[in-house]
C-alpha cells in the first residue's frame, strides 16, 4: 500500500518548467521540511531556555540515583535504596504482567462471548448481548474505579473470608496458598529439564518424519504430554527417594498486620485485571463473532453433514478458518489492552505510567521521563504487533 496511488502526475508535455510538477514537488517538500524544522527548533529552544532559567536542563543522570520511594508490588526485587532506573524497569514489568495475563484471559472470555452471541440458545445469546451493550458503552476508567471501589466491600484483613484455609478474601486483595520450592526442588528440576528436552526432541523428530512423508500430523500435544509425564514421574521418584515432596504448599498465616506465606494478589491488581479483561473481552467477542460469521455457511453445513457434532464443527472447522479473519483486529485489541493498562494510576497499581509519574514528581525531569515513557510503550506495542504478525503469517501458511 506504500507504493502510493498517483495524486501527482508523472509528466506533461508543453508546460513551462516552473510549473513542472516534479519541481513543485521538490520545492513543496523542502518548504515543508524547513517549516517543520523551524517549528521544532522554535519549540525546542523555548523549552531549553525555560528549563535553563529554572536550572533544570534535561538529563538522564537521575537514572542511577537511588529512587527512595517504595513500590507496592514488583516482579523483580526492589526496595527504595535502588535506583530510579530500576524503579522504571519495575514499572515496565508490572505493565507487562497485567497486560500479559489480561490478554490471555480476555482472549478466553472473548472467545466464549463471541460463540455465546451466536448460540442457538436464546437466553445465552441475549445475556451475552446485554453484557456487551452494557460494558462497551461505559468508560473503562469508570469501570476500573468501580471494581476497585468494590474491593472495599470485602471484610478487613482480620476478618478475611476463608475458603478451606487456603484462600483468603479481604479488602486488601486475595491471599492464596501457593507452592513453594522445598529442599529437593533442585533434584526434581533436573527431571523437569530432562522432560522438556525429551519433549523437544520428540517434536523435532516427528516434524521431520511428517515432512519426509509429506503428510500432516499432530506432534505438539504429544510432546507436551511426554514432557509433562516425565516431570510427573520425577515428582514421585524424588519423593520415593527422599521421602519429602520437592514442592511444598505455603499456607498463608495471618500475622499481626498481614498474611505471611502464600501469595497475595493485591486488590489494585485484581481490579485492574478484572476491569481490563471484562472490557476488552467485549471487543474481542465481537471480533470473534464477525470472524465466525465470515466463514461461509456451507462449511458448517458440510461439517454437520459429515457427522461432526456442533462442538467439533466449531473446534475443527469454523474456528481455524475464522482465525484468519480474527487475528489482525485482535492484534489491535491486544495493543489497546496494553495501552489501557496505563489507567492503573487511578487505582494505585504501580504500572509503567504510574512509576514514570512518580519519578517525574521526585526529579522534576519531565522531558526525559516522557521520552522514556513513550519509548517504552512504543516498544511494547511494537513487540506485540511483531509477535501477532508472525502468528498471523503462520496461520495463513497453514491455511494454504
Amino acid at each position, binding site marked *: 500500500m506504500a507504493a502510493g496511488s498517483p495524486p501527482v502526475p508523472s509528466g506533461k508535455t508543453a508546460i513551462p518548467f516552473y510549473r513542472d510538477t516534479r519541481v513543485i514537488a521538490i520545492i513543496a517538500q523542502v518548504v515543508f521540511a*524547513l517549516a*517543520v524544522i*523551524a*517549528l*521544532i*527548533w*522554535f*519549540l*525546542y*529552544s*523555548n523549552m*531549553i*531556555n*525555560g*528549563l535553563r*532559567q*529554572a*536550572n*533544570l536542563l*534535561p*538529563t*538522564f*543522570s537521575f537514572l542511577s540515583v537511588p529512587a*527512595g*520511594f*517504595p*513500590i*507496592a508490588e514488583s516482579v523483580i526485587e526492589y*526496595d*527504595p*535504596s535502588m535506583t530510579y532506573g530500576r524503579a522504571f524497569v519495575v514499572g515496565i514489568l508490572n505493565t507487562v504482567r497485567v497486560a500479559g495475563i489480561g490478554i490471555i484471559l480476555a482472549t478466553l472470555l472473548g472467545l466464549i462471548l463471541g460463540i455465546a452471541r451466536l448460540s442457538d440458545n436464546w437466553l445465552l445469546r441475549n445475556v451475552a448481548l446485554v453484557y456487551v451493550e452494557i460494558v462497551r458503552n461505559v468508560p473503562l476508567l469508570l469501570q476500573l474505579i468501580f471494581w476497585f471501589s468494590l474491593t*472495599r466491600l470485602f471484610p478487613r*484483613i482480620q476478618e478475611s473470608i476463608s475458603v478451606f484455609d487456603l484462600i483468603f478474601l479481604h*479488602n*486488601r486483595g486475595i491471599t492464596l496458598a501457593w507452592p513453594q520450592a522445598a529442599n529437593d526442588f533442585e533434584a526434581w528440576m533436573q527431571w523437569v529439564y530432562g522432560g522438556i528436552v525429551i519433549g523437544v526432541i520428540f517434536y523435532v523428530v516427528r516434524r521431520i518424519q511428517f515432512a519426509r512423508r509429506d503428510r500432516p500430523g499432530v506432534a505438539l500435544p504429544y510432546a507436551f504430554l511426554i514432557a509433562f509425564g516425565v516431570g510427573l514421574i520425577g515428582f514421585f521418584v524424588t519423593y520415593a527417594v527422599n521421602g519429602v515432596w520437592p514442592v511444598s504448599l505455603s499456607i498463608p498465616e495471618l*500475622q*499481626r*498486620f*498481614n498474611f*505471611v506465606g502464600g501469595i497475595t494478589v493485591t*486488590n*489494585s491488581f485484581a481490579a485492574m485485571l478484572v476491569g481490563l479483561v471484562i472490557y476488552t473481552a467485549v471487543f474481542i467477542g465481537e471480533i470473534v463473532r464477525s470472524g465466525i460469521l465470515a466463514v461461509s455457511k456451507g462449511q458448517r453445513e458440510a461439517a454437520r453433514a459429515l457427522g461432526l457434532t456442533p462442538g467439533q464443527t466449531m473446534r475443527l472447522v469454523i474456528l481455524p478458518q475464522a482465525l484468519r479473519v480474527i487475528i489482525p483486529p485482535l492484534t489491535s485489541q491486544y495493543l489497546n489492552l496494553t495501552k489501557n493498562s496505563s489507567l492503573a*494510576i487511578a487505582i*494505585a497499581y*504501580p504500572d509503567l505510567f504510574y512509576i514514570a*509519574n*512518580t519519578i*517525574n*514528581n*521526585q*526529579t*522534576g525531569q*519531565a522531558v*526525559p521521563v516522557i*521520552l*522514556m515513557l*513513550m*519509548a517504552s510503550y*512504543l*516498544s511494547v506495542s511494537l513487540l506485540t504487533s511483531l509477535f501477532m504478525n508472525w502468528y498471523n503469517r503462520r496461520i495463513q501458511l497453514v491455511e494454504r
Partner: protein
Amino acid sequence: MRKSVIVILTGLLSLVLAACGGQAQQAPTTAPAQPATTAPEQPTAAPAQPAPTAAPAATAAPAGGTTNQPAAGGQIERILARGTLICGVNNNPLPGFASVDSAGVYRGFDIDFCRAVAAALFDDPNKIDFRPLSAQERFTALQSGEIDVLIRNSTWTLGRDGNLGLDWAPTTFYDGQGMMVRKDSGIETLEDMDGATICVQTGTTTELNLADQFRARGLTFTPVVFQDGDSTRAAYDAGQCDGFTTDKSGLVSSLTLLSNPADHKILDVTMSKEPLGPAVRQGDPQWFDAVRWIVFATFQAEEYGITSQNLNEFLNSDVPEIRRFLGIEGDLAGGIGLPNDFAVRIIRHVGNYKEIYDRNLGPDTPFNLPRGLNALYTEGGLLYSPPFR
C-alpha cells in the same frame, strides 16, 4: 486554535526527531537516551538557524521571547499588569489549609497567605486566581511560569530548592510527618508497625520519609500509594491500610473527614521536618524578596501586636520602628518592588500571623491545633522576622 494545534503537532515530532537525529527511519521506539542529554548545549551554539518566529537569544543568559523573564522586576510588573495574582493551591480539599466552602470561596491557612500577597500588591485580597494543583503538577506549574507563587503545603528541602529551580520564602508552618492508626490496633510506636500496610500519597516527601524511617529502623512495610489525598484517606478509612501517614497538619484535618474519627489516633512520633512555605520560581530575586518580606510582615505584625482591628491606632504611632514598618516613614519597600505601605495592606485585609492561624486552625476551629513551633520566637516558637529597617 488550529494554528496552535499545528504548533503542537510539530512539537510532538520534535521529540522524535530530536531523539532520532540523523537516522530518522530507525522507528521511534528506539529513540530516547543520549541525544537528549547532549542537546542542551546546542541552542546557545547555533542561533543562526532560520527560525522565523524565535527571537535570537544571542546574548548570554535568559530570554527567548519578549515576555520571557527580564533580569529584575519582571514578575511583579507582569502581575500588576495582569491585574491578578495567580496562586497555586491544593486541588484536594485540605480543611484548615485550603478548601472551598459551600459558597465556592477558597478558605484556609495557605489561602490566606495567597491573599496576603495579593493584598500587598493590589491592596485587594481578592485579586487572585486560584489555580488548584495536584502534588505532581505543582512544581512544573511553577517552573513553567504558569503560576506566580505556590502556596500549597509544600515542604522546603535542599533537593527541591536546588534541583527544581525554585526558591522558598520563609516557612509559614512548621510541620512534621505523623502516623495515624486505629486505636484498637494496639500500635504505640513505629516499631510496632513491622509488616504493616501503610497508605501514603505519592509525589510528596512523605513517601520518601516513610521509606527512610522504616529502613533506618530495619522495619518492613507494604506501601499503598495513591495519587490524591482523598483516595488515600478513603483507603485507610476502609481498613485497606493499617496506618496512614502524611504531615500532622494533614492528619488532623483528615481526622475530621473519617467516618468514625473516635476510632483513630495520631501516634506521638514525628518522622520528619516539614517546613511548609510559599515557593517561587528561581531567577527573579526581586519577586522572591517581595514574597519573603510579605511573610515576614505577618510575623512582625504579630510581634508588635498589630491586628486588623487595632491597625488604625498604630497608624498614629510615634514609635519609629512601627512607623517604618507601616511605611509611614522612609522608603524601605521600594527596594523589593512593593508599595511602601504593603504591611498595612496585609494587616488590614488579612491580618497578622496570629489572626491567620486562629482563623483557620486555632481554638475556635474544629482542628484546635496548638501553636507549637509555629509561635513567635518570644513565645518559644520559631517565627522570627528580621528587622524592618
